């Protein structure tokens, strides 16, 4: 019992001694304060100068470059878009003009053709008409002539027949009047 107790006591002493050695916080020991302050200021100043003079401008420049590049690219894209839209509009204008012109030309040529056709048609019609009337006139003449010749032939035939049957000549003028009368009666149908 005593042995155990003494052992614990020794252990406690040992432990407390151990802690005592480390008891005070090393942070509160002013021995190296000046050194730490000095080295902190030195190191931090160098770090600050190198960061502010070399590294930050580089990063900043790079970020700005990227932003500018993006902006430029966007501007260019917008420009190209505008140009293409303009081109498209131009193209559409040209197309509408062309179709308008084409219809115009089509209409004009149609009109001209129609006129020409009309002119030719009327000329042809006139010619045909004149031909027809000429032909008709000829026909009428022919008919009249034929009637006359029929009359003279029938007179002659009638005179001959009468002469052969009766043996004497009849009055020429009476035969003619009779033949004309008969032919007038019958020929009316054909004229």
């Amino acid at each position: 019992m005593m042995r155990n107790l003494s052992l614990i006591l020794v252990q406690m002493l040992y432990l407390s001694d151990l802690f005592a050695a480390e008891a005070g916080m090393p942070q509160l020991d002013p021995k190296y304060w000046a050194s730490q302050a000095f080295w902190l200021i030195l190191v931090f100043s160098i770090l600050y100068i190198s960061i502010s003079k070399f590294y930050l401008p580089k990063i900043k420049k790079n970020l700005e470059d990227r932003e500018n590049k993006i902006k430029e690219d966007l501007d260019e894209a917008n420009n190209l878009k505008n140009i293409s839209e303009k081109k498209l509009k131009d193209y559409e204008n040209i197309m509408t003009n062309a179709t308008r012109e084409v219809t115009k030309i089509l209409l004009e040529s149609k009109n001209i053709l129609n006129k020409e056709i009309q002119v030719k048609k009327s000329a042809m019609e006139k010619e045909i008409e004149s031909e027809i009337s000429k032909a008709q006139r000829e026909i009428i003449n022919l008919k009249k002539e034929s009637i006359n010749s029929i009359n003279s032939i029938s007179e002659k035939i009638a005179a001959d027949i009468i002469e052969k049957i009766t043996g004497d000549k009849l009055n020429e003028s009476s035969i003619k009047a009779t033949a004309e009368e008969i032919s007038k009666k019958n020929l009316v149908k054909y004229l």
Partner: protein
Amino acid sequence: MQQFTVHKIGPEIKIAGIDLSFTNASLFMVISASLICLFLFLSTKQKKIIPDKLQLISEMLYSFVAKMISDTAGSKAKPYFPFIFSLFVFVLICNMVGMLPYAFTVTSHIIVTLIMAIFIFIAVTVIGFIKHGFKYLSIFVPSGVPAVLLPLITIIEIISYLSRPVSLSVRLFANMMAGHTMLKVFGGFVISLGLLGGWLPLSFSVALTGLEILVAFLQAYVFAILTCIYLNDALNLHH
């Protein structure tokens, strides 16, 4: 507490009777600063329109700090951007380097954080007086306060203003120290409980390491953003 002790490396340097020897604290400051410079050098070496990973990290860091400053202190704080950037990155990397095993945590020393905080305090006060002259003192007299309360409020404002460097430095130092001490305590438990019972503190240790990395980032962020807020008070008098 052994992890916080400062010891000399190399010969003793004494200038005008003051011991300015190179110590492990100085070594880790140099390591942190070198890491930052190396990272920034590598990430800005090639300027690409489409950034690679390293370049992207540095650009994100840049815009992160830039946004933090413009959100808290406005556009007038632009000239102080390099300082805040350096401060944030330095504190962040010192905290992170301190998370490595056997590494020394520079920011777990009150003298380091105090010097930074005092520098910020003095700089902000000087900037305030340069920008606004004696009108800067109106920062202690908030508007819209009843006349009866005004003396009391003014005293409180002065005290809060003067305690800024203390709160700023102690916040960072205490957080870093407490975190590392806790990790050490749990690490000690792992050893003393051995194979049988050591698993529980070990898992705690793992979880705490994650937490400490978060705290390391958060404290650097808080340090930088509080600097921005103090700068904002000096640049734009709101009262």
